[in-house]
Each structure stands twice: as structure tokens, then as C-alpha cells.
């Protein structure tokens, strides 16, 4: 597991409410207040990275080639996998890192002047946030 995931596990932050599309994560980890604040801040920063770099191609709605591609990829084979990236619960640190730094099909990889290593860590926190519940 990653450094972040390890920290999250140690933090044991039971998230009771993830507001879909909203900007607030409610936590009951008051006792772990310090840790949960840090991790929530990281998830929030990751959400911003996602909005800036990924959402333009991977959101729901028309004109989103990333979403169209993933819908076609999983249709019939893994119908339970959502086409919209941020709705997925199966993403891992390795998979996010791989696609950001290697690219796939028409998606070129992202340089560190675009998504820095720190941004990538935040993005991973955001896209794997369901695992931290």
C-alpha cells in the first residue's frame, strides 16, 4: 500500500457522507482530527487536480471522449464499472499513476510541470478515497 493509503488506514477515518459532486467530506474522526484534516485536505486538493486536468475529458455528459471510451471499454464485460472516473471505487494508486504517467490510446501522458508528483499523490487520494472509508 502506498504511503498515503497507509496513513489513511492508520488514521481510520470512517467517512459517513460523501456528497456526490459536492465539495465537502464529512468525517467522524474527531479523535483523529489532525490526521483527518490533513487527509481530507489532500483529497480536496486531489479533487481540484481532477477538475482541472481530468474532468474536461472524463466527466459525465456529452462531448467527453474519456467517458465515452471507458463506457465502451467496460460495456458488456464489466457493466458495474462506472464510465465516469471519479465515480469508480476500484482505482488504485498504481492504476492512477500508470495512466497519468504513461497515457493510454489518444490520452497523452502528463508532464510534471502539468501534474507534479505532489499533485499526483493528491489525485490518487481523491480517486481512491472510497477505499479509505
Amino acid at each position: 500500500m502506498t504511503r498515503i493509503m497507509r496513513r489513511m488506514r492508520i488514521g481510520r477515518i470512517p467517512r459517513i457522507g460523501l456528497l456526490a459532486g459536492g465539495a465537502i467530506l464529512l468525517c467522524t474522526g474527531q479523535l483523529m482530527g489532525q490526521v483527518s484534516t490533513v487527509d481530507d485536505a489532500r483529497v480536496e486538493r486531489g479533487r481540484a487536480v481532477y477538475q482541472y486536468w481530468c474532468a474536461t475529458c472524463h466527466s459525465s455528459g456529452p462531448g467527453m471522449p474519456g467517458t465515452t471510451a471507458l463506457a465502451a471499454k467496460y460495456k458488456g464485460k464489466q457493466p458495474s464499472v462506472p464510465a465516469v472516473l471519479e465515480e469508480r471505487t476500484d482505482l488504485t494508486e498504481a492504476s492512477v499513476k500508470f495512466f497519468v504517467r504513461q497515457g493510454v490510446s489518444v490520452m497523452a501522458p502528463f508532464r510534471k510541470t502539468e501534474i507534479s508528483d505532489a499533485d499526483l499523490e493528491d489525485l490518487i487520494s481523491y480517486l481512491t478515497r472510497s477505499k479509505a472509508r
Partner: protein
Amino acid sequence: MRIPPGLTAGDFGSAVTQFEQVVGREWVFTSDEDLNLYRDAYSPLFGEPEERVASGAVAPNSVEQVQQVVKIANTYKIPIYPISTGRNLGYGGAAPAYSGSVVLDLKRMNRILEVSERNASCLVEPGVSYFDLCKYIEDKNLKLWVDVPDPGWGSVIGNALDHGGGYTTALYRNHFDAHCGMEVVLANGEVIRTGMGALPGAGTWQQFKFGVGPWIDGIFSQSNFGIVTKMGFWLMPIPDAYLSGTVSVPRHSDLIRLVDILTYIENAGVSNGMPMIGMLGSGFPGLGGPRDKELGALLARPGGAPPEEIERLALQKGIPYWNCSLRFYGPAKAVAAQWEHTKEKFSAIPGATFQDGELLRLPLTPEQRQRVHKPEFGIPSLEMFSIGARSEINPNPTNGHMWFSPIIPRTGEAVFEAQRVLSQASRDLKLPFNISAIPTMYWLRAFVLIIAFPITRDIATNKRNRDAFNRLVQIAAEHGWGEYRTAPVFMDAVAGAYSYNSNALMRFHETIKDAVDPNGIISAGRYGIWPKHLRGNRA
């Protein structure tokens, strides 16, 4: 560590240390892992020994840092290759034209220095994307539009410098023409400002392009004479309304009059938006063929079908051969009157029919924003990347694309000639598709054909496509058609076609290159301009 050509490991090591002192260690990249991110994912040479790759990358954050990096590069004679956002996919991406160069990555210079609603203009740095500029304007609720190209993550400066185009009105969609004033770092590290920017204290840098004396901005586009670190642009005040309308004409030969009338309509200022010509009910060129299956099959036939055969079937089915959609931006009453006048003019073609589009009041509602062709309304997106991407109808996605994009004369006759020649070439080159050559009109006065070739991860396929592409460049040149823009691997061939008077223009470029960059450090090979020591046997 990779070493740039012509350098010793020791010298490059010293230079890297100095780069790090200027920009910070974090922003100098020399590991394979980091440099792989500078590979052009859309390179037609991907994975081959000839692929153009970087030896390093340096990412300054200010013009002062750019100056210092350039001085170091000049001292050590290190080839450097400036990129802005590095997203010029299909035309080279973030990879250098000369393999082994150090990429000067300007993405971190992403400041929007000024947006003036009063003057409808802006001044930006190279790392500012269309998404960035549009969001800034929206957040501040300014009543301005940015003319955007298809990929919204492109650099406003980079796109203009590579002669990119957009979709709104004629005044703005030629992005280089819509710029006003530049700041450029030269190979010796000196900074110049062009136009009124050269006059200390002038408040008109983004108002008057020329200043006095030679207007040199053009030599910094598609070239390697300097590094543009700031650029001003004229922006479009949000118009009151948008109206579109479509003219359809039944016969193949009707295109000749259609184009002539269209040219008048545009040049006279009756229609200010970007027209689009379609064939047999197809949409925007490059996005899908005819909706009718039989006609689609006829067109998709390897090498195409003769126009007479297509026209016969189209007439039988009552499908017009050509359609042309026009766009009008302005006051609601004015655009309605302009469309009426347009219809009157096109009525001169027997059998012409018209379809009125919806009149949209601007700005658009959120619901309207979702359904429109976004770039026509200054909305940046990445929708165009659906080309080649996986979808239900395309289960085998590509790894990108490259564009063959020759400029041809703006007449119906030239379109017919291009269709005939390029269909024949499709057959001769055994392309798996037929080049149908529908013109697009990003710019006034000339047509451009935009033809996509897929990029794959199969070396043999890429080689075949490269060979076909190079042959098409030659065939086009034999007919007087030259590309307006191209990827690094084709730059020599494309620039070589502009050969009037024993390549006099290229020799002039080389004279400038030798004078302003005697060590030949900036973007060697860009658009066929090589520094003296890499010019080989060419005179």
C-alpha cells in the same frame, strides 16, 4: 544521463548544475522516467530509433529565468526546444524537432498578466491554456470571448505561433492575426518587445500592432529565432446573438457557384462566422460521412467513387450534393437580416434550398452550453479527441493522429481537382480510406483540407502512413498546394515544397537564423530551419 548531441558529459553536467541553480532542482529533468513524459505520444516515429526525444528538460518560471537558461545554453551550445503547454498533439507535442535537445518547458509561466474588458484584449504568458484564460474571464464575469481551437488545453501563445485557428468570427479565429504585441527572449538572452511594446511608457502595446519600422512578429511564428515569453491578443466582446443557416444545392457542379457566392458573402462582411461545407448531408469535415448508408458505402469504397455516380444516387434519394452552413454573430435584428440577404444571394443557384437555424441569445444558458458545438461560442473543450478514441463504433482506438493539411485555392474547381488528385493518390498509395477532401474555412480567402492519419503503436503501420504522408506532400506540391502546419518529422519535406527561386525563402530564413542565433541553439530543425552546423549538404 542522456547527453545532447555535440556535448561532453562533463559540459552537460556543468550546464545542468547551472540550470538547477536558476530554476531549482525540482524543475530540471534528466532521468529517463521524467524525460519519457516529454515523448510525443502522437509521434509517427514512436518507438523507433529515429524518434525525436529530449536529453533533458528545464522549466523556468519567469522571463528572467528564461534569459539565464538561454545564456547557459548559449555558452555550452546546448540545443534547446521551447514548448508552451506541450499539448500541440498531432503537430509534435512536447518532443523536440532535433533529437537530443533540452526541452525548455514554459508551462509554469502561466500568468494571465492583463485582461482588459474596455480594450477587449489580454496579455498572457506561454503556459496559459485556453481553459485558463476562459475560466479567468468567466470568474471575473467579463463580457469577452476567447476564440478557442479544438483542444482547450492548448497554449494561447503556442497555438497562435503555430498558426492555429478557431471557430468564431473572421477577426478572431486566425489566432496569429488576432495577436497584438510580443515579448521575445533572443538566443543571447536579450529581451525585445515588438510593436508599441518597444516604446517605453506606451499604453498601446495591445492596441496597435506595428509601432514603426519592420513588423517582425511574423518571424517568431513557426520558427526558431527567439522564445516568445509574452503575447497580447484581441478578444471578442460577447455578441448579442448567434444565428446559423444552411444552404443546400443539389448537383456536384453547384459547388463552383456556391463557393463564389460564399466568398462574396464573407468578404463583404455579410456573414462573419466560420462557414462549413459538407457533402451529402455529412457534418463537419472529418466527423462522420453521409448519414445515408448507401451513399456512405459508395464514398467509403477504396479510392472513392466518381462524382457522376454519387450524384445519380443522391438525386434519386433527394439528398443535396453539397450543403454549406453559415454563422452570424451580432445584434439579433442584424443577423436575421444578414441571413435573409445571404439566402437571396444563394437563390441564384437552381434548386438551392435553405434551412433556418435557431437564433441563440448570448450568453448561452447552461443547458444550451451543453448541446452546442462549443468552440463556436468560445467554450474550450477536448471534444475533438473523440477522433480515434474508443467508442461503441470504434472498438479499436488509435494512439493519436497526425494531420495532412494543405492549403488549396478557394474555388469549387480547386476542390474538384483536389478530390480527383487525392482520390487517385488514395488508390495509388493503397490507403485503407479515401481522402474525400472537403475544405474547411478557418481562415478567410483560402481553403484548407484537414485530413487525419491515425498513429498506432505498430511500427510497420506507422512507417506505411509516414511514407504515404510524405508522398502526399510531394503530390500536393506538384499541384501548388502546401501544408500550413505539420509535425516535426515532416517539417523538412513540407518546408522544402516552398521552393520558389531555388529555395530563396528558406535561404533567407537561414540568413536570419545565423544572424540572431549564431550558435544555433533554439529549436533546431523547426519548420525546416536548421542552424549552419546541422544544415548538411544543402547550400
